[in-house]
Structure formats: C-alpha cells, structure tokens
C-alpha cells in the first residue's frame, strides 16, 4: 500500500476537502478550505502561526469537528454517514474505525511515556488492528531499523533526545500501514541540530510514494520533498502549486511577505 506509484495521479483523490469551516467560539479559524490530495502526493502546508493549518490537519482525522463543509478520506466521509437524505454523525467507535489507516505525527511527539520504544510501535497494530504479536514485533523492528532507531527499542521515551523521539513517533505512525500520513509541525519542538535527522527520515518516506500532508515551517523541506506547496493565511488557502512556482515566484502579496521573512 505504501508503494502507490505517482503515475496513479489520475486516480480519485485520497483526500477531498470542500468549504471546511471551523470556529472556536467567536474565533473563526477556518473560513472555507478546499483541498484535494492525490494518492502518493506529498503536500507541504505553509503559513504564519494562527493561519489555521494545524487546525485543518486535525480536522482530517476528526481530532477537531468541523462546522460546515465536507472532508473525505479514501472515499469515506469523515465523521458522518449519509442514510437516505439524512446525514448522521458517526459514533465514537465508527470514527475510530475511520482513523485506523490515517497516521499522525505530533509536534510534541506524544510517545506513550510508560511504554518502551518497541511497545510504542506495536501498541496500535496489536491492539487496534489485531495483528499477531510476533508479526507486529517483527514489523516494528523493521520500521525502527528504517528510521535508524533499532538500537533503542527497549529504551523509554524520556531517555531519548527529541529527534530520536520524533523518529520513533514516525515509525509508530507507519506501523498501522497508513494510507495517509499527517505531520503536525513535526520539527517545531526540536533543537535546531536535531531537525535534520527527522527531515531526512521524512524525505525518505516522501521518496517512497507515501501520501503525506505536512504542516511545517521548513521551507527547505517543502522545496526538496513536496510535490505541492499550499500556502494558508487567515483561515483560507491563499495560493498553491509546485514548490518551484509558489516558493520561487509567489503570486500573492501575503505569500511573498511570509516567504520574505525566510529568504532574508
């Protein structure tokens, strides 16, 4: 499933978001987001703090509910089902089922502190996907190898550096064999010298055809690894396109102002 070739880009979009609105009380954070993501595509979402990019990402796996609009992943509407002409909210158990193949990597890593590295990775495969323990452990070891963390499989998260924790968190998300990976500012909580190892891991994944939506401040990563850059500001998508266009020759004033801060 991870080896979805990019030549399938003419297929149906993996993610479809239409007119997504979200407000926290009187504060309107998302003001109508439209976004399609194709299988195998790597989309970098850029934008200033408070632009709503993290909130939008969290709406995709329903960590946040939305007020208006529509989100669909892999052909299934997230959070609701249409019965006849009645749209009904899904139960917690049904939403849990929808999340089974959406991986997520958090800004603060959020590893389970009471479990070892290996247990962190095998928890969902065994407990949610019902995989046999031996198989889950073997797969987890292979994934830890891939992110360069196999030597720490029996360590506890607190004994690791931030970069190591985030690489374990990536392995943990990969262990559920995700069709879609969400990265919520995966390097923002890291010391500058640790950012590189995490970005290298992500670049590796991007090269292997995993569908990724990456909310980030790393312009360099967007430039090298993303197929498309989406620039958000004030709760809307201001402009989007290949990194070579949006990052090099931005059409909108707000994009230019934002990127200018990084270029200078």
């Amino acid at each position, binding site marked *: 499933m991870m080896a979805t070739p990019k030549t399938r880009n003419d297929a149906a979009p993996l993610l479809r978001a239409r007119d997504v609105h979200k407000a926290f009380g009187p504060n309107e954070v998302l003001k109508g987001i439209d976004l399609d993501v194709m299988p195998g595509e790597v989309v970098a979402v850029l934008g200033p703090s408070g632009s709503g990019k993290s909130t939008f990402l969290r709406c995709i796996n329903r960590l946040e509910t939305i007020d208006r609009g529509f989100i669909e992943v892999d052909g299934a509407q997230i959070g609701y089902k249409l019965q006849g002409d009645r749209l009904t909210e899904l139960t917690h158990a049904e939403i849990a089922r929808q999340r*089974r193949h959406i991986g997520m990597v958090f800004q603060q890593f959020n590893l389970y502190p009471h479990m070892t590295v290996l247990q962190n990775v095998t928890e969902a495969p065994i407990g949610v996907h019902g995989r046999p323990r031996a198989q889950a452990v073997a797969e987890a070891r292979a994934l830890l190898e891939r992110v360069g963390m196999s030597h720490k499989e029996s360590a506890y998260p607190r004994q690791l550096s931030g970069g190591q924790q985030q690489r374990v968190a990536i392995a943990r998300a990969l262990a559920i064999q995700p069709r879609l990976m969400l990265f919520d500012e995966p390097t923002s909580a890291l010391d500058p010298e640790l950012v590189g190892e995490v970005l290298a891991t992500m670049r590796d994944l991007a090269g292997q055809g995993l569908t990724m939506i990456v909310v980030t401040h790393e312009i360099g990563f967007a430039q090298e690894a993303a197929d498309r850059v989406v620039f958000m500001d004030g709760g809307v998508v201001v402009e989007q396109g290949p990194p070579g266009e949006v990052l090099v020759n931005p059409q909108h004033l707000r994009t230019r102002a934002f990127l200018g801060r990084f270029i200078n």
Partner: protein
Amino acid sequence: MSAADRTAGLARPDDPLRDVARAHRPFPWGRVALWAVVLVFVADFALLVAGNESFGWPVVFRYLFDPVVLQGLSVTLILTVVAMTLGVALGLPIAIARMSDDKLLGGLAWIFVWFFRGTPLLVQLIILYNLSFLFPQLSISVPFGPTLLSWNTNDVITPLTAAILGLALNEAAYMAEIIRAGLLSVERGQIETAESFGMSRGRTLRRIVLPQAMRAIVPPTGNQLISMIKGTSLVSVIAMSDLLYSVQSIYNRTFEVIPLLLVAVIWYLAITSILNVVQSRIERYYGRGHDRAAVAADLPQEAK
C-alpha cells in the same frame, strides 16, 4: 591564556594544587555532635519505656498472639481488604461518570460523592446497621411495578454486611476523587494520540490513561488504605469484633488497659509497615519510564 592568568590574581588556574578533583570535604563536627545528643535522648527514652512496669511488657507479649486478638486481627484485615477492593472497584466508574459529558451520569456521581464524603462514617454505619427501621423489606422489583424478589432486611444486614457496605461506600467516594485527580493528571495529548490511532475509548483508558494516572493515584491510595485499617475500628459500634474491639473485650475483663492497647498498636504498625513496602514497590513499577520519579520513589528507603 596569559591574560586569563593575570585577571585570576593570586589563584593561578594552572596550579595543580587547586584542581578541585583532589579537594576534601571538612569533617561535619556540628552534625556529629547533634547526632550524639539526639541518640542519647532516644536511648534514654527507650530505656524509660522498656523498664517502665506500667507498660506491662510481659502482659503485652502474653496477649500478642492470643486467639481472641488474632481473631480480631483477621476481621480487621478481611474488612480492610474487602472494603478497599469494593471501594476501588466502585470508585473507578464513579470517577469516570463524574468526568463524563453526560449531565445525569455526572450529577448522580457528584451526589454520591457529596453524600458519602460529607457525612461521618460512624453515622453511615449506624444508619446502615439499622436499615430495617427504615426499610423492613429489601426487594428487587420493576420501578412502580411488581416485586420480583424480596428479603427481610434484618436477614441481609448483619454486622458484617453493614460494616463492609458502609466502609466500601465511604471508601468509594474518596477513591472516586483520587482516581479522578489521577485521570486529570494525564496529558490531553496522550488521549488525542490514542484516539488518532483508532483506539477505542475502553482501550485508551486501560492501556494509555490509567497506567499513567496510576503514578498520581497510588500514593494517596496507600494513605486511604492505611486510614481504612484504622477506620475499621469504628465498626466496633455495630458489634463487629475487629482488632480494637477484641483487645477492648479482654481489658474490660482484666483491666490491663495500656498493655492490651499496646498489643493493638503493635499489630496496626506491623500491617502498615508491610503496606509501606508494598506501596513503594508499586510506585516503582508505575514510575517506569519516569527516571526522576523512580529515583524519588527510592529516596524514603535510603533516608531510613
């Protein structure tokens, strides 16, 4: 380097005699003197207690393993274990109910805690024991409908069941608040992460939230258990012959009040000492992955 040497004045950094690796610590005369004084007082007091005839040590040792005392001890232990187990088992769902978004569930849990925490245990025990005065019959029936099963209240409420029920309900109220505090202490991000991986609510609670909450739950629970052991002595008012009641029954006959109370004291201390050891084991288990916390759990033992 030469500039640094000059600003250092008399203390030259390259002087090998000034390497702190070879430094000595001054002998702690003050502390040693203090220790000596304290130990003299302690020894004097110990001799005073051991040599004092009024303490009646021979009487203490004669009754320490008396069958009546051991019988009382076993009642105290059984009451504690059963009431505590029921209290925790009942406290967990009450804590979860109090945290739920459901107004009715949360309200009922709140009322339970409000009542059982807000009234003296002694009063609860006496009311429970005299339940037949309020409800002569206990029955299982459809609300406002026919009765399915019925018992005479006095057959159901013996001193033992009244004691267990009273202690357990009271304990459940306190444990519910302790467990709730523990659940609240777990980071919101942990629950979100478990949810984002498609974990069910039950599994999230069991695998992710509770094991982390235990670090905050275990120490006050140890506290509760220890007050429960002593709290069981209240059941003597409803004629349960627990440890305290059984020594009382002996000294009412022999008038050796202090020696027999010492028997009870020795047993209470023996039980709580064992529990202290068990508690620190449990704390170390749930502290895994928290290096600093694990070290902190070891400290009290090293300090002794």
